[in-house]
């Protein structure tokens, strides 16, 4: 179902529907997802945020519970209704990839509750970023995986495309905000085609998970990791990286147990109490990062843990590019 939302009605969408609205906001030279109170706070012309919106469901620091002496005080479940407005299709897709991890076997209540209470309103990409390669992973600038609604920017209005029941309900329950679509769909198709052809980076990932199974002992990892600095940019800024550390933080009797993003690039990540480290070098750690995304995750959850957003390449201090690495591996 398509509808149209005039941009001058955005403020109503943000304030009248009872959601906490989280949207891309420009701060200095970078864009990040923040709570907004009006449409003019939102940066609609961004390519992508530096820190991905995974932080909304999986914050960098999260209190698991508090304690006082020997008594645990569990957190009351968050019930706040949220709308993520203007999220890019690739980032929304990352949630579809992460969902099985957080919901299979042991359910992660923190992630699940936020996810359930949030409606994702995406923003189709008209001008992809320089390192985007989403089309190589079966997605694209107009991909709707993970989204409830997709917006297409048309100047003074958005074409609103409903994807899920949740999205449809939002449209029908607030029909006074929306108008019927006329010839917008045709224009949207043109924008999509232009956007897709603007993506210059491609890599063939068909058969890659299987191929990687034969490459564990290959010397290529040594070469690849040679100039890696071992910082956590590529993992912290990845929308599908989900590793975390758990720590207790105390002051006197009171304290809290937190979980906080961790990175497989961190030597301490696998360091045993005995001092033994199964992944002692950058080579081991880089191999684990790449294999986790393109071999282990597909093995365990049936999907490559990469959305092609290009953040790892854009933010690597020494210019390492995942597209190039995958091409190298695929070409062996």
């Amino acid at each position, binding site marked *: 179902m398509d509808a149209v939302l005039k941009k001058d009605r955005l403020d109503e969408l943000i304030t009248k529907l009872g959601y906490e609205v989280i949207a891309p906001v420009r701060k200095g030279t970078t864009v990040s997802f923040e709570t907004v109170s009006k449409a003019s706070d939102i940066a609609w012309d961004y390519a992508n945020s530096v820190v991905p919106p995974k932080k909304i469901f999986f914050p960098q620091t999260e209190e*698991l*519970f508090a*304690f006082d*002496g*020997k008594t*645990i005080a*569990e957190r009351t*479940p968050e019930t706040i209704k949220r709308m993520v407005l203007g999220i890019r299709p690739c980032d929304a897709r990352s949630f579809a990839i992460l969902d099985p*991890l*957080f919901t299979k*076997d*042991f*359910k*992660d*209540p923190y992630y*699940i*509750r936020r996810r359930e209470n949030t409606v994702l309103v995406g923003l189709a990409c008209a001008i992809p970023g320089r390192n985007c390669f989403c089309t190589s992973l079966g997605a694209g600038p107009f991909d709707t995986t993970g989204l409830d609604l997709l917006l297409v920017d048309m100047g003074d209005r958005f074409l609103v495309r409903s994807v899920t029941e949740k999205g449809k309900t939002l449209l029908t329950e607030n029909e006074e905000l929306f108008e019927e679509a006329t010839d917008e769909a045709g224009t949207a198709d043109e924008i999509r085609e232009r956007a897709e052809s603007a993506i210059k980076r491609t890599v063939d990932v068909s058969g890659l998970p299987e191929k990687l*199974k034969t490459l*564990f*002992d290959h010397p290529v990892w040594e070469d690849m990791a040679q100039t890696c600095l071992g910082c956590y940019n590529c993992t912290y800024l990845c929308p599908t990286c*989900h*590793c*975390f*550390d*758990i*720590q*207790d933080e*105390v002051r006197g009797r009171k*304290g809290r*147990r937190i*979980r906080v993003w*961790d990175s*497989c690039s961190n030597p301490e*990540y*696998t*360091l*045993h*109490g*005995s001092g*033994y480290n*199964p*992944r002692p070098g950058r080579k*081991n750690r880089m191999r*684990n990062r790449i*294999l*986790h995304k393109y*071999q*282990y*995750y597909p*093995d*365990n959850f049936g999907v490559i843990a990469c959305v092609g957003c290009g953040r790892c390449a854009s933010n690597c201090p020494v210019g390492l590019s995942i597209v190039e690495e995958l091409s190298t591996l695929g070409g062996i």
Partner: protein
Amino acid sequence: MENPYVPNMATIIGLKEEVKGERAIKTFRVRFNDAELADSFDYIPGQCGMVTLLGKGECFFAISCSPTKKGYLEFSIMRLGKVTRALHELEVDETVGVRGPYGNGFPVDEWKGKNILCIGGGIGQAPLRSLIQYVMDNRKDYGKLDVIYGARSTADLCFMGELEEMEKRDDVDVHLSIDNEEEGWTRFVGFVPTNLTRIAPSPENTIAITCGPPIMIKFVIQALEKLGFTPDQIFTTLEMRMKCGIGKCGRCNIGNVYVCKDGPVFSWDVLKDVKGEM
């Protein structure tokens, strides 16, 4: 929704010092404060629990007693890092947290009717102790039981009292060893794999389970294969640094296998083909 990150509080009801020194080992017997949970908590030998000391953190340990022992759990813990050091400071009646059981455990039902051969080294005996107790408590379900166990010195041998008791029984064969000669030691002197080769148990209808330092495991498996054991007759239980224990936090993977969730028990048949750092 149940919260898998929140531990259940338990009280230490017994403490036994197994090994003294820098890397001391203590066995903690704990009982859940919730009486209903204490009686209903069930697990499989080889499964693990996440033991919490609020304010210090959590560590993943094999449950070292058998589920046939009701009403309590035991963990045999070596003093190594921040959490284990703090745990070693605790005394009886103090509180810890426990969540679990985690991991797959030994397939004890599938092993019914088979001979069981346990090969342990150092603190690696902890999960094997659970299995040994289980087999002893269900003695008629299993064939011959052999326990091969060694440590660097007599001072490093865990569960010595129990093992000496077992030596007196005729339904289990215990083969102890230490690495170097010591006065008064009349049993075998040498490494565990050497002791295994010397004893040369028959692979016939037998399952061999080994746990200990990685280097020992490696040579034990080589020795077992020489004795004619096939990979599907060999099992090991592994350890990795862990945080969540439930397969989410990432770090304990060997290839695509997560030790906390898919392990810690692996048959050599599976493990030999897994590509990953151990």
